[in-house]
């Protein structure tokens, strides 16, 4: 969440060629890919559920959620477990590379057009050195009305 503090700790992950960020408070853990049980009759981006230490946790493929072409999972693929209210959901990303302290000042509102990802899902962008980080609007990403068939 963008708050009054001067710095925001974020987890940085990769999706296609872009780098995205989620505030660390919303992240429960980062997992390697494990067996995912497909759940029938759910939207395509819902990959299924995994057994996360005894808790059945749904998994969303962020690539498919954002309409980016899917790639097979590889050694770099990670599942970021995020928590929002009373929901815990895993997000499949290409790689999770970094934890960063973002100066709040460096965060700007999303530009009108961003390649591939609908602007709705974006809370802002931040420039750190040469890197451009996209801050995800998790509430929108996990919105339920789009998850029903």
């Amino acid at each position, binding site marked *: 969440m963008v708050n009054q503090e001067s710095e925001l700790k974020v987890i940085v992950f990769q999706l296609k060629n872009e780098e995205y960020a989620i505030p660390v408070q919303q992240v429960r853990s980062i997992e390697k890919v494990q067996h995912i049980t497909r759940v*029938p009759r759910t939207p395509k981006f819902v990959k299924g559920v*995994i*057994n996360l230490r005894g808790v*059945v946790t749904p998994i969303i493929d962020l690539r498919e959620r954002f309409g980016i072409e899917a790639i097979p999972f590889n050694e770099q693929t990670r599942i970021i477990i995020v928590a929002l209210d009373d929901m815990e959901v895993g997000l499949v990303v290409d790689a999770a590379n970094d934890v960063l302290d973002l100066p709040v000042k460096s965060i700007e509102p999303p530009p009108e057009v961003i390649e591939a990802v609908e602007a709705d899902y974006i809370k802002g962008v931040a420039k750190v050195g040469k890197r451009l980080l996209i801050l995800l609007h998790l509430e929108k990403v*996990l919105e339920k009305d789009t998850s029903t068939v």
Partner: protein
Amino acid sequence: MDMSQYLEIFIDESKEHLQTINEQLLELEKSPDDLSIVNEIFRSAHTLKGMSATMGFEDLANLTHQMENVLDGIRNHKIVVTPELMDVVFRAVDDLEAMVNSIASGGDGKRDVREVVQQLKQIEQGDVPTTKTEQPSTTSTLTQTYGEFEYNVLQHSKEQGFHTYEILVKLRADCLLKAARVFMVFDALNQVGEVIKANPPVELLEEEKFDQEFVVTVVSKQSAEQLHAQISKVSEVEEVIVTAIDVDKLRPSELASSQPVLSKTEAAVTAEKEEQKEENVEAQKEEKEHHKAVANKTIRVNIERLDILMNLFEELVIDRGRLEQISRELNHPELHETVERMSRISSDLQNIILNMRMVPVETVFNRFPRMVRQLARDLGKKINLEIIGAETELDRTVIDEIGDPLVHLLRNAIDHGIEMPEVRRAKGKPEEGTVKLKAYHSGNHVFIEIEDDGAGINREKVLQKAINKGIISKQNAANLTDKQVYELIFASGFSTADKISDISGRGVGLDVVKSTIESLGGSVTIDSQEGVGSIFSIQLPLTLSIISVMLVEIQQEKYAIPLSSIIETAIIKKEDILHAHHQKVIDFRGKVVPLLFLKEVFDVPVVKEEDDFFSVVIVRKGEKMAGLVVDSFIGQQEVVLKSLGNYLTSVFAISGATILGDGQVALIIDCNALIK
């Protein structure tokens, strides 16, 4: 001071006290002369009042206070217990409950209770002098009355050379700590003699429920002057009048009482007092607290923590499975032994954890006596509710769900089952109908039966209704067995009551009952004999968190089908499949059963080609059946039911998930959703 941390305890305890009050009030109604019941209610009400005042819930405290006054009147025989009075007290308890519930759901616990308070006040004042003249409400008169027991004590004391005095003590009008002064007076008297009786009674004195004066009867070897001097030493005492009494003269005038029952109960009360007279107020209170602590050696644990414990344990079980596998592969005898031991311990642990989640059905049953009483009064019927096996335990999750169905069934038994008193008399039955609510364990199930000795089910009436409502056809009707006819009652849109009443609704009740119970993995059956009564029998699984399933494979995916829905499994040949209206069906033991290819229903990615044989699981939902076509059966297993989480809600035909021994998640199929 921040009270929020105590709020949860307050709510829990308030509910407990209200429950006690409810139960005891019902007892009191049955035996209005039993003072120990009144005392019990009084104690709960008093604690409740104290707690709510401390927590700052004034309305709650006020109403409890008012109720306490009435109870006090009953205790002192100033008020007679009548059904009308009980109605008002019950209404007050209802209000209290509503307030506590409002607090529990985050409200402020405020409620307009003026009417009930007014009624309570009226009772408190209105009926006062009629029944009890021997115990005057004011203490301005010096004469005390004595029960037989007290009389004997006095006689006995006299023989041993004690004098009997009645002492009127008047405290100063500005006395602040009346109870403390009373205590000091009693203390002074106990040093020189013994207090036999006090008016108002000691309990009331301790609670400062008197004006300025009170009378005590004391036996002592001291003279009247010495006693006077002793008591006058207590500060804030305005006046002391010591009167010597001749015990022998008491008997003819006072004990020719026309109410032997009352004097007996009074004697009992005094006997209690006798036992406690040495202890001071604090000690008595401590004693009570202590007693309570011993009786209830439990702790409250949040159900969430138990769930977490369960989760952690399940993980252990999965790891245990892996360990067992590794030990088998390594074939190391010591490792083998250790793993085996661990397995045994963990299965004991599993039992304990599961047991911790068990709650006696009492928690559901205990609200029924009130409800039945109310219903019986509303309908003008006489009903005796018998509860058997209230200690039977069920999983917490089942308990939470079972309440409403039971209410429906009880209402049904009372409204439709039990006849009006006149009708019963005409039939040669006792006027009072009996409804038995019985719970017991059997195997892996818990049975709850609701039995009434009412009219029973009229087969013809049910059939007629079912035909009229288009539930069955006339041709079918004749062939149905009695049991099948009774089952019709559970069909939706069915009500056999000639007139629709508030109590059993519009026939929406019973089909809801059936579906709720089936969703819990249970079943309902009816047995009835016309003119003799009916039995509704509910079968429930012991726990919802662990269920027996049949694991099946569909292509490369594993699914679990709850055993409770499965009738049997079969392997059929491709050519046995018939077609009817674009629907594949099979002839299964003379019945046409539609086939559902789960592969298609669940869009399972196909990797293997189908062969000429199909594995079919025959499942049922009520009377309807379906055959689920799978690729292979893996076997039966006990699994832990898990939800899919809050993100994936209402997935079609999937009721949950479970974690298998290899750590993978298998989905549990909801057969009810598959059968239309």
